[in-house]
């Protein structure tokens, strides 16, 4: 296996764009990535793309084919990867393999999504054998209440307060003010967050991510191709995907195995992140910044502890002491995260690759993590899919 460089990244701003097609949004991200890479479309030898459930792809998730047809058909192979909100990360993992294996020297990875209005109906299957369908009919439990249950448990176990939860959203918006691609770029006070509507108690509207339209892309290449273009490329230290284990205690479906110790953690995310640590030869203390999937503020407390970035129960005090801001000891989501971007589901992994690349190059402006050398990204999707990536300079 050979090293793989991220030679170019590009993003379409995230938000609601009723007058833009998903194709035009992807094109903007792809053209920006090609320009950033100093490459042209005919030089791209393969495409790995996130499959969308909500937009484009001819209804079959063929979103990579849409991109190729739009950019100009050159006969190259297209891989469309479906993994819910982890699809972008999944596509990155395959794109990385296509280059590291020596099969191709230059690969485009892209994710783009236009989301329908309102809360996502999780399952696309309306039949009583589908656990998600049954969960909605027999109990009535939309997505945010899943996060709320995990969050309420944490409050009981670790004494996490409503104020701490609100402060995470406050911090996210302080970062997004400095990110021109963010959907929400205004600062909030703790009171603003606590006064926003209760969605699923204890979570307020500003403590969960909305749905957005967005697109992001990256050009991956061999060391030889990278050296033609730059002296100091960003490298993929590791990429990994995983699915959940049998008894991690996360409530999936109507009932799941209850671990005897009462614990619950996202095993799919932990396996992907640990897989990256191992492949990269990196320990949690080496990580300079994290872009994690903050569907809700809860994950910004739970994930760093589950992944060994801090001690169990310590994330709250790091937050209180201002250590999760870009200039702190454990910077989390300097981009503003999905709280400020919203989730454009299949683009999320590629969003993180873009932000990590800008941070590692020192191009992140007022949200820059000083002297960032190693960055970790992570996504989580329906079907218990997770992806993780470690980039380094």
């Amino acid at each position, binding site marked *: 296996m050979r090293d793989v460089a991220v030679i170019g990244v590009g993003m379409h701003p995230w938000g609601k764009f009723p007058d833009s097609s998903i194709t035009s949004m992807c094109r903007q991200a792809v053209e920006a990535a090609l320009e950033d890479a100093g490459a042209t479309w005919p030089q791209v030898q393969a495409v790995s793309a996130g499959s969308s459930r909500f937009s484009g792809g001819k209804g079959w998730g063929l979103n990579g084919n849409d991109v190729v047809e739009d950019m100009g058909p050159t006969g190259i192979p297209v891989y469309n990867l479906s993994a819910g909100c982890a699809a972008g990360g999944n596509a990155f993992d395959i794109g990385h393999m296509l280059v590291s294996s020596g099969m191709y020297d230059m690969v485009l990875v892209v994710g783009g999504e236009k989301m329908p209005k309102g809360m996502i109906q999780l399952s696309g299957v309306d039949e*009583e054998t589908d656990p998600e369908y049954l969960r909605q*009919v*027999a*109990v009535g439990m939309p997505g945010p209440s899943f996060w709320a249950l995990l969050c309420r448990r944490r409050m009981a176990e670790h004494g996490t307060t409503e104020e701490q939860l609100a402060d995470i959203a406050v911090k996210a918006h302080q970062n997004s003010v400095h990110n021109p691609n963010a959907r929400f770029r205004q600062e909030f006070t703790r009171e603003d967050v606590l006064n926003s509507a*209760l969605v*699923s108690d204890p979570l307020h509207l500003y403590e969960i991510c909305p749905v957005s339209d967005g697109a992001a892309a990256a050009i991956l290449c061999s060391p030889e191709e990278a050296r033609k273009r730059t002296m100091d490329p960003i490298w993929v230290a590791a990429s990994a995907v995983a699915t959940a284990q049998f008894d991690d205690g996360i409530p999936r479906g*109507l009932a799941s195995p209850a671990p005897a110790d009462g614990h619950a953690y996202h095993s799919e995310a932990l396996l992907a992140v640990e897989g990256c640590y191992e492949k990269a030869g990196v320990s949690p203390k080496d990580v300079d910044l994290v872009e994690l999937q903050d569907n809700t503020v809860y994950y910004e407390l739970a994930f760093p502890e589950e992944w060994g970035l801090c001690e169990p129960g310590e994330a709250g005090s790091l937050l209180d002491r201002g250590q999760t801001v870009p200039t702190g000891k454990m910077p989390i989501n300097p981009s503003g995260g999905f709280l400020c971007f919203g989730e454009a589901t299949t683009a999320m992994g590629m969003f993180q690759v873009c932000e990590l690349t800008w941070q590692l190059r020192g191009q992140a402006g007022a949200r820059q993590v000083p002297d960032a050398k190693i960055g970790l990204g992570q996504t989580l999707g329906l079907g218990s899919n997770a992806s993780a990536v470690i980039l380094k300079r």
Partner: protein
Amino acid sequence: MTTTKRVPVTEGLFEETAEGARLLGSRCATCNSTYFPKSPVCHNPKCSGSAVEDASFGPSGKLWSYSVQHYAPPPPAKFDEPYEPYTLGLVDLPEGLRLLGRMTADSGDLEVGMNVELVIDRIHSDDDGNDVVSWMFRPA
């Protein structure tokens, strides 16, 4: 005068017995892993067997967590108009299941770790005015 009928939200998930509410599921004949709803096979990757037998669960459990659903859920969930927030519970059963269900009590009466018991109760009405019932938890 007509009596309101109780209609289960889905057939085959639960029954009301003289001893109380029972959920209908499965137990692995080899490793004792439990499943709700019924599962045709055991999914425990560490288990050498796959055959399961019918099992029923309840009524006691411990509240693992809870949340109040403040907005009307999207389809296919159903509710009575106008929408009234309801409380969801996640309950650990001694049979080894972490089970979702609605709570009969308001969140102010709930505490993580408290004992709860399974009941069958109304979650909404159907178009004919019947009570649609599902499993719920109430503080024990």
